[in-house]
């Protein structure tokens, strides 16, 4: 079908609106309320254009094109209408562009330049709107609001949490939160981007610079496992702000608040400015050369092959590749990145964070099963995809140990105790084996006897319904990213595999780390070298390395609290002869355990590559030079290799490293293995004790976000424990008091009590969000609750 816009012939499909056709054909139509990811509101009236033969101007955003019609976007009628709208918009809009953060990238400013009058005829007083605080991330200046309602629609349609609304009518209409509450969506920062004027601005960068002074560098998100694309805006070699970079396959045009505001950590006081070495029992700042000398000297005095190296799964693939290369060149195979994992039952665990379908396909799933995943807050982008599938009528089921808040509705939500997780999955398998008994494609599949032994007859109807939903085509199972601290984590992965084989559903093993897949591929595990080839010598995993009390430990880009075996690690480090840290941040307390600490450039300050869960390699450039005296990881690691006599060209640059890593890793064998043979199921013995459950606060998951000041202000009250009423009564807790004491081993913590029936029975739920929570003890371990 064809129409003519400005005498240009344009073809279109039925139902398309004029603005869509014009955009596709490069014809500019001014707009404010229209946004191609949001529903049509048609309220700004800026996009009025002329349809030949129709007296009234037509809004291009909401008018469907009619076959063989002629339209003009620049005729007198159209231009007059646009001018009129512009004049109306500027009546109440303050002309404070010089002090407005949006100035220079303001749609209203641009349109006013193109379509506005030179002088306003309006002489009366302007409207002033009271600003309410809506949280630490967004700075409001609602007097500038032009009521396009993009932010309102974003909340309803994209974030799935309706927080903004239009209150009042006419000129008195205000966009604000209900009951002056704060914005809580983990995607809220996107409202800053879609706001066409300066009503919603980023609070951290408020009044700190002007748009035209910024330099833009593309980057990949260093949080969650999807690798959102973003643009970093740099001002004077420091990051001014972060905005999304469109990638239709991954994050579309959105990024999570965590990706947007985590850069603030760069200026945190924990930042290491210069290399630090322990000289005569005191930590002093030293020069780089001196630091390397000390390292060389110290290592020569110990049995360096009795070392272990731990690297963050947030590090780039180049760093990980060089890290394991350096250590393996020195015959050290005790390399691991799975520091937050609880147990290592299977030495040949080949299941690593991956998803069977591309991220963009998630929205086409017909059913999704979430296994203990706080998806909305831990993986906002994936949650958005699941929400899209929900809007396409997919059934979302959830088995969880805490009733998480989702931004979509769940069909069945099953709250269970953390230690019943694998029993529940076995129940699903039991039902599925009965249902799929006649499925010939499963002939070759033999269910391990250990699982069969656990069959005990089905009673729960919810499980049957969940299983039936999985049997639909295009179903997806997502295993939560906080489960790695669960004692049965590896069994859960195997059971998930079995379920996916039986139901032919897709699996997704989520991770809180941006490059966990990369860490596997680059060989940062004890049993594999780069490219997923089996290692000849199998080293210790992180748990064994800590418990073997080795002579030397090397910790790369990790805080101690990142380790599940946090207290054991500290003990081992204090007994070790040499501890080397390579990190961007260090706390005063952690510093004492290191002998040498090298200042590492953060992910923003170095180039690198991340591999996300769907296996996409995404490289990014350095967005600013390393702050203080820190250096990029690949430089430090290359230098360390040189110290140990590795035969490398001195003039090596980053691209050489990338090429080398690329060649070594790209040809990895397919890692899609659905291993399940050697499964050995164990029963937990301590059935009736109270245990500590919980995940990590999504703004405390890694060493960058936990130092981002604004993000950490989002939920200001963090020192609380949640317990359900029944458990409290069983433990004789006085419900009238709002404080309780929790004990793990010898450690106690005085915390606020929240009576919360979203917690499962016999659990004390603590979302790790400050150091005290780690000092108290580990998750999934016995805990005691007492009255104050």
């Amino acid at each position, binding site marked *: 079908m064809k129409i003519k816009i400005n005498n240009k012939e344009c073809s279109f499909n039925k139902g398309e609106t004029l603005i869509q056709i014009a955009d596709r054909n490069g014809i500019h139509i001014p707009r404010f309320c229209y946004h191609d990811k949001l529903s049509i509101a*048609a309220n700004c009236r800026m996009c009025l254009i002329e349809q030949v033969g129709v007296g*009234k101007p037509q809004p291009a955003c909401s008018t469907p094109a009619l076959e063989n019609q002629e339209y003009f976007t620049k005729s007198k009628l159209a231009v007059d209408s646009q001018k009129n709208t512009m004049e*109306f*918009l500027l009546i109440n809009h303050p002309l404070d562009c010089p002090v407005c953060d949006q100035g220079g990238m303001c749609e209203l400013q641009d349109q006013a330049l193109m379509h506005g009058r030179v002088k306003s005829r309006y002489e009366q007083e302007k409207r002033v709107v009271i600003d309410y605080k809506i949280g630490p991330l967004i700075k409001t200046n609602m007097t500038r609001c032009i009521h396009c309602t993009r932010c309102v629609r974003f909340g309803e349609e994209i974030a799935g949490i309706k927080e903004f609304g239009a209150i009042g009518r*006419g*000129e008195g*209409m205000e966009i604000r939160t209900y009951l002056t509450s704060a914005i809580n969506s983990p995607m809220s920062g996107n409202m800053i981007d879609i706001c066409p004027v300066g009503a919603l601005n980023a609070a951290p960068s408020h009044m700190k610079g002007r748009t035209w002074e910024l330099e833009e560098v593309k980057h990949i998100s260093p949080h969650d496992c999807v690798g959102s694309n973003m643009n970093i805006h740099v001002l004077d070699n420091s990051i001014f702000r972060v905005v999304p970079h469109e990638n239709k396959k991954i994050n579309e045009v959105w990024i999570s608040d965590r990706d947007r505001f985590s850069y603030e950590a760069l200026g945190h006081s924990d930042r290491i400015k210069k290399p630090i070495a322990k000289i005569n029992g005191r930590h002093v700042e030293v020069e780089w050369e001196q630091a390397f000398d000390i390292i060389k000297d110290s290592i020569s005095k110990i049995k360096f092959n009795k070392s272990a190296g731990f690297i963050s799964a947030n590090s780039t693939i180049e760093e990980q590749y060089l890290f394991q290369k350096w250590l393996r060149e020195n015959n050290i195979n005790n390399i691991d990145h799975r520091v937050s994992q609880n147990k290592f039952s299977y030495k040949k665990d080949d299941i690593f964070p991956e998803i069977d379908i591309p991220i963009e396909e998630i929205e086409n799933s017909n059913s999704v099963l979430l296994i203990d995943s706080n998806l909305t807050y831990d993986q906002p982008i994936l949650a958005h995809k699941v929400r899209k599938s929900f809007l396409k009528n997919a059934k979302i089921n959830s088995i969880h140990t805490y009733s998480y808040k989702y931004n979509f509705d769940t069909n069945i939500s099953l709250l269970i105790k953390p230690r019943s997780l694998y029993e529940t999955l076995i129940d699903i398998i039991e039902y599925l084996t009965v249902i799929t008994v006649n499925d010939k494609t499963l002939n070759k599949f033999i269910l391990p006897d250990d699982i069969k032994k656990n069959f005990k007859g089905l009673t729960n109807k919810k499980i049957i319904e969940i299983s039936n939903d999985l049997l639909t085509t295009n179903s997806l199972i997502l295993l939560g990213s906080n489960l790695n601290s669960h004692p049965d984590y590896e069994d859960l992965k195997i059971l998930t595999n079995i379920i996916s084989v039986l139901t032919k559903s897709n699996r997704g093993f989520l991770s809180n780390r941006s490059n966990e897949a990369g860490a596997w591929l680059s060989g940062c595990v004890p049993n594999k070298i780069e490219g997923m080839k089996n290692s000849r010598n199998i080293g210790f995993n992180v748990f064994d390395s800590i418990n073997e009390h080795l002579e030397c430990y090397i910790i790369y880009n990790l805080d101690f609290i990142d380790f599940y075996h946090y207290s054991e690690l500290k003990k081992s480090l204090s007994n070790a002869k040499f501890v080397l840290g390579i990190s961007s941040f260090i706390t005063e307390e952690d510093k004492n355990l290191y002998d040498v600490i090298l200042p590492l450039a953060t992910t923003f300050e170095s180039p690198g590559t991340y591999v996300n869960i769907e296996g996409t390699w995404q490289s990014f450039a350095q967005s600013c030079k390393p702050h203080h005296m820190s250096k990029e990881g690949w430089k430090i690691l290359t230098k360390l290799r040189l110290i140990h006599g590795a035969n490398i060209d001195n003039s090596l640059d980053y691209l050489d490293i990338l090429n080398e890593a690329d060649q070594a890793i790209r040809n990895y064998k397919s890692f899609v293995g659905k291993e399940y043979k050697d499964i050995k199921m164990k029963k937990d013995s301590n059935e009736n004790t109270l245990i500590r459950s919980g995940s990590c606060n999504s703004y405390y998951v890694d060493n960058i976000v936990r130092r981002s000041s604004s993000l950490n202000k989002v939920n200001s009250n963090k020192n609380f424990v949640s317990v359900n009423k029944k458990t409290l009564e069983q433990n004789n807790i006085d419900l009238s008091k709002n404080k309780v004491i929790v004990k793990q081993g010898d450690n106690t913590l005085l915390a606020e009590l929240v009576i919360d029936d979203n917690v499962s029975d016999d659990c004390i739920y603590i979302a790790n969000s400050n150091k005290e929570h780690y000092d108290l003890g580990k998750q999934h371990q016995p805990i005691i609750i007492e009255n104050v």
Partner: protein
Amino acid sequence: MKNNIRINELCYSTLSKDNPNSFETYVSLGGYSTWKNIVLSAYDKKEIIETVMKSGLRGRGGAGFPTGRKWSFINQDSEEIKYLVCNADESEPGTCKDRDILRYNPHALIEGMLIASYAIGADTAYCYLRGEFIDDVYSSFKVALDEAYKNKFIGKNVLNTSINIEIHDLIGAGAYIVGEETAMLESIEGKKGFPRFKPPFPAVKGLFGSPTIINNVETLASIPKIMENGPEWFNSVGTKDSPGFKCFSVSGHVNKPGNFEIPLGTPFKKLLELAGGMKNGKKIKAVIPGGSSVPVVPGEVMLETNMDYESISQAGSMLGSGAVIVMDEDTNMVEVIHRIARFYYSESCGQCTPCREGTGWMFKIIDKILCGNGNLDDIKTLESIPKMISGSTICALGDAAAMPVESFMKNYKEEFLKYIKDKKEEDLYQEKNNNKEFVLHKK
């Protein structure tokens, strides 16, 4: 002369009886016989629509769209859920005709709603009353609704047949804009009363996403009699394009303000006579013939005009909702438009830019002029703003706010100029020409 006019025959037919709103009165006048007949003989839906179409009944809410044609947009036989909505949110300043139908002849409305629901194949109907009706108007309607339910004219298995029709009554919260049909749908859905953009039209995608027909109280209350007496009875009165009876609410400087149901095409003179003529025998100055949102017509033009859609349109205005506001020679027209502009300023929903900002701007300028602070630029601006608003908004409130200002400026400009005292008119023009355009200074 008075005897020649057929008055109060249709919607106000119960007015002359004792207890006009009671079920018995209505039934004694032949009420519900049509509905009974339709239900029991399983009347053809198409035939009802054809009858209404033949009668030439036009929507009485203000726009005057032919009712039968509106109904025919819906596919009566499709399985889809359909809705009928009765617009009883009568808030146009000057209009009070629906109020009296609801008060004194609620059963006619209920029967009309039932027939309309049946005709379009809807089994749920909503009657949306304005918030201010909560007192006696609502209770009168509610009592009638209960009576109709009790007598099995509504509900499950109407008159023991397989027909099910439910009528729900709703009370608004006092926003003028909810009288706009799509804003009303939003309000019924529990949302804020914001008009929707069209297309899609409500007949395609209306209430809860289903095809919906929205009719005014008077329109629906006219249906039973039209069905009973036949379309010829109805269109035997009135003019060719405006057949039938219409309720007019006469207010202003007349001796006997009130509602009068008269044949369309009746000369305005006669209507004025019915309303007791001008108060204190003063001269007529101006008339707003169809509610505050239509252009004002000078009195002398109006005296020569007949009360039907075409004649009033020829006089430069609209029949609208039939609220005739009469003003005598002592009326200050600037004060009148000041009041009208303030109304639209505070009732604009705030969705579309031109209406949200323009209504306020117009009011502020009129206010400035009225306070004696105006200048000639203000007059110019005031003349241009209505043109900027009209036709560029989602709903008709923008036009409704613009039309009166435009017509007042056109017909009574000299009164505005009077307020710009102190300076002579020629001086003002001179001043205007001196600083005519903003010149870009080049260095």
